[in-house]
């Protein structure tokens, strides 16, 4: 045992603990118990859980709305429904500062590239909620010549929230579903998102061209 039983007068020096000791859960739990008894506030948990706790309770949505659902989204942000209660503190006007994009409303053919670019501009980790019938499948406008039949054709969608428009309670429910999803993520050791770098192909092409030019020169 590399840890003294009497904790008084002990100065922790983590280097002193052999590596194997970290795998010895029983000893660690015992140590925590002793520490807690001595009035020291210590909690042991995976760091993932702490990160997820923080991340899921400070999801800042992008101010993005194309039509009706956007007005309901404003109502969700206003005093009566107040999404700040759940950690969606304020909306951000720049995609660079936003964590989640709520696709409020119909996405048309003309809007699709704009939405795609907005999503690409957001910093990882980023999430998408499809709000309302239009964003899910085209909704009442499925037969139209100018409407994208579901935003999931362009973006990877995390949560779908049906309704036309959904009630503010549905908004909150959808956003809390996303929080649940975030809380089971692993920050260390695993990749959460499998999004391809949208510019990878373009960049490799450009690089090759550059190399060719250099060779020629």
């Amino acid at each position, binding site marked *: 045992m590399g840890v003294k039983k009497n904790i008084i007068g002990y100065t922790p020096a983590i280097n002193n603990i052999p590596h194997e000791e970290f795998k010895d859960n029983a000893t660690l739990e015992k140590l925590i118990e002793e520490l807690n008894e001595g009035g020291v506030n210590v909690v042991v948990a995976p760091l993932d859980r702490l990160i997820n706790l923080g991340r899921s309770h400070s999801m800042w949505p992008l*101010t*993005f*709305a*194309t*039509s*009706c659902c*956007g*007005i*309901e989204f*404003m*109502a969700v942000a*206003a*005093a*009566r429904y107040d999404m700040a209660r759940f950690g969606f503190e304020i909306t951000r*006007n720049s*995609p660079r500062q936003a964590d989640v994009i709520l696709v409020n*409303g*119909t996405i*048309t*053919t*003309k*809007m*699709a*590239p*704009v939405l*795609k*670019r*907005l999503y690409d501009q957001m910093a990882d980790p980023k999430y998408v909620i499809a709000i309302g019938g239009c964003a899910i499948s085209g909704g*009442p*406008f499925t*037969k*139209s*010549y*100018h*409407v*994208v*039949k579901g935003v999931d*054709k*362009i973006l990877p969608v995390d949560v779908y929230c049906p309704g*036309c*428009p959904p*009630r503010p309670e549905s908004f909150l429910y959808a956003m809390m579903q996303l929080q649940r999803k975030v809380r089971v993520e692993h920050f260390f050791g695993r990749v959460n998102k499998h999004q391809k770098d949208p510019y990878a192909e373009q960049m490799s092409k450009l690089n090759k061209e550059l190399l060719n030019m250099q060779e020629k020169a």
Partner: protein
Amino acid sequence: MSNQINPQIVAAAELHATLASLKAEGYDFLEVLTGVDWGEEGLGVVYSLTKTATGEMTHVKSVCADKENPYLDSVCDLWAVAGIYEREAYDFYGIKFLNNPDCRRVFLREDWIGYPFRKDYDESQNPEFFLESEPISDKAVCFTLNEDGKVKKTETPIFGENDYVVNIGPQHPSTHGVLHFRTSLEGETVTKIDAHMGYIHRGIEKLSEGYTYPQCLGLTDRMDYLGAMQTRHALCMCVEQAMGIEVSERVQVIRTIMDELQRIDSHILFFSCLAQDLGATTAFLYGFRDREEILKIFEKTCGGRLILNYNMIGGVAHDLHPDFVKDVHRLIDEVIPHGLKEYHEIFTGNVIFQTRAKGVGVLSKDDVISYGCTGGTGRAAGWHCDLRKLRPYAAYDRVKFNEITFENGDSLDRYMVRLKEIEESCDIIRQLIDNIPEGPIQEKMKPIIKVPEGTYYSAVEGSRGILGVYLESKGDKTPYRLHYRSTGLPLVNVMDKACRGHLLADLITIGGTIDYIIPDVDR
């Protein structure tokens, strides 16, 4: 009262002269311009003109038989609003308007193939969606007629070579939706605005041509979602009058009350959003707090908060909720007066707002008539354009209210018009709420609704202007052509005029007070 119209047919060659003489006769307001594909007969346009003094209307129709290369004379020298209407007709039908200085596409992408509103349009020509950015040309297109009778296309640059152009939108929190302004600046002063629309164009008018009349109703609420009641009212009224159905007194009164509640709702949201855009977050929260009270009333009776689906052809969907009268009394006697007092205290008198709004974005009376800016924007400039007074419908002929008008036509007046109209709307409701007549809420209708052959036009006063419905029927269960006079399209069009010479920051104030709703503009 029938709303059938018999447009006077004018040969394409005499179109400009006829319209000019009509304008000289006093028809000084081009209310709506509707492109139509009449199949064998050819493509054409129906111009609906109004005398601003009396509200009297006349309609002129012109057809170009050559479907391959259709063209008509532009009338944008007579009415400024014609410019944008003609662009719309060009976008949807491919009708070229000669001498219109800027005849580009307005809603669809510039690389779009075909004209979608033509009856023989093939949808497979365009991909389902594009992922590459839209090509935006820097050149305005103008069509002119050569001496040998061929249409010549000339391109002129929109901006000067050394202009500094800033893009505002399509994703911008203060454009009230997805709207794209290409703004050229001289220092911080706006010199020109080139508005791009169509980011939420869903082709509602084309969709309606494949839907039955009750199905069409479902799409109306989703155009101007802050005037859901009024838009639906307009279409129901148009179909009812065309079929010769008289709805009961009870329905008329209910519709009037609902329209006014919707107007209050819309104006409160206008106030909230304007305050938010100018940086006053508390005022935004105050507005939304009071708006929820109206939504509660709607929810009890209609079941919906925003999209209400309440008006039906021949009546309304449900009877009033037992609490309706009590709730409305509480709203108009307690909530709204208290709210308005607070709005004035917290925002109207604020020196920052006063300085940012007074004298900013002035539109004269001639401007608003020429640009077709109805609603609060028109009335702020002193134009008496309220349809509730000019051509009363529903129960507006039996209530007394004032038409709010101002003189200056600046942002402050446009703001004040709307806040005053909230009071007037409360007054209208107060006169009706206590004696809602008894009667059926729904007339007996046939299971399949067919409108007799003909052309019809009805209009209501929406939350932000005249909302017209042009309906052409061939006697089928679906409309042959359904066109809505968008309240917002002329308002977006006037932004260039209103913002020139003002600072970039004033663009937000002007856009906020002009109060357009983009899904209503794009349809």
